[in-house]
């Protein structure tokens, strides 16, 4: 009987499930989405490459000339690169709709201007 009352109460409530593609939820503050490199700050030290647990970051060249390649399909969004970066050039954006059927879109290249 205890449950019948609960069930009755819920009949008059609207569904809890969000209608996802039409209603988007704001991610919480501090959510770890796609990391973005700020190449103006980057000194090309390669720390992000070294700490990455899944080898999602590649660096071509060295120092101020270096180009960063970020493989989204490997990234686990742990945020260790952003944390370890000595010049805070990496930020974790709240971007979360990152899947794609085209593999080339999963590669983000950060070049010096």
């Amino acid at each position, binding site marked *: 009987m*205890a*449950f019948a009352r*609960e069930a009755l109460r*819920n009949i008059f409530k609207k569904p*809890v499930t969000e209608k996802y593609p039409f209603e988007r939820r704001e991610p919480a503050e501090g959510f770890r989405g796609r990391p973005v490199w700020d190449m103006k700050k980057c000194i090309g030290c390669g720390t992000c490459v070294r*700490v990455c647990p899944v080898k999602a970051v590649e660096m071509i060249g060295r120092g101020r000339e270096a180009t960063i390649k970020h493989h989204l399909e490997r990234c*686990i969004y742990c*945020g*260790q690169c952003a944390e370890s970066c000595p010049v805070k050039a990496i930020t974790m954006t709240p971007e979360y709709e990152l899947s794609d059927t085209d593999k080339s879109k999963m590669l983000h290249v950060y070049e010096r201007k």
Partner: protein
Amino acid sequence: MSGSTIKVIIGPQHPALKEPERFILETEGEYVVDVKVRIGYIHRGIEKAMENRTYLQGLYLSERVCGICSDAHTTCYVQGVEELLGVEPPPRSRFIRVVVAELERIHSHLLWLGIAAHEIGFDTLFMYVWRDREIVMDLLEIVSGNRVHYATNTIGGVRRDLNDEKIHKILKGLKTLEDRAKEYLKMIQKEQTVLKRTVNVGILSKSDAIKYGAVGPTVRASGVKRDVRADDPYAAYDEIPFNVIVEDGCDCLARIMVRSREVLESIHIIREALKRMPGGEIRVRVKPRIPPAEALSRVEAPRGELLYYIRSNGTDKPERCKIRTPTLANIPSLCKMLVGGYIADVPIVLAGIDPCFACMDRVLVIDREKREAKVWTLDMLRRYGREWYRKR
């Protein structure tokens, strides 16, 4: 075995939760007389992979041993590494570890309660519980920045601090959760749908629980007061007073009750931890290279005692990392519970230990027996269980 027994094979596809494992039941009529378990379908080689990663990278790998108790795994791992280094994490970080660990316990227990309800065919309860579980998932996202892999712990402390705004949100969420948890606790005790399928089902007596080395809520449901948080306090558990929840029922209902009451106890622990939390630093910086040493670390994961053994050799990578997850410890008692019960009760008894086979699979035990067998999937078994009870 006599000639009259029939083998019923459950799995390897999804015997309890959505994970592969195989159970071979010897049955006589409606009774299960013997159980054989074949584990190892999702052996992922994580322990070996640990050896090829630095300690910091291994942290994220240990988190991925289990998707549900990911925080317990990292806590256990970092405790081991901190012991190797001889580093004490700052007091505030220890309290934050408690908060995240208990939030995780609430989420894991609610998840399990939903699954248990689903196994006995009570999908309405399953839906309600999972709806309310979203509250704690949101809290975890607020605290750590992610719903599942929190990445809160790091070697030498935690990565994120709690501010007043976050604490306020946690307390508000806990209030709603507490009301709901109390409601469910009342409901379970009265609801015939639950009682008829769980009372005196999957009995594991107190002496058997000790003999087979059961851990976590499974052993506590058999009246044994065993909890790593109280017996060998880690993080800040020694500074927070709390009760170890014990039930004497020894059956599936007792397992449901233990977990439901632990949800309330966890809410209490989080409140106390937030109240007593000291200020100060949340992490200390550590060196990447670790001198040769050995460490053994224990944590009470939502499912029971989790154990990590780590050996360092002076480089920045561990030489050996051994993980013993609670499900593996509960498998012998699970076999004991199944024997003597009805085939129709197998799903709820299996789910009763809250198995997590993906984390368990690191040992390969191969059992080769080729006899005539009939193969069932769990869905077939679950349907059979419901039909069988309806006819009764």
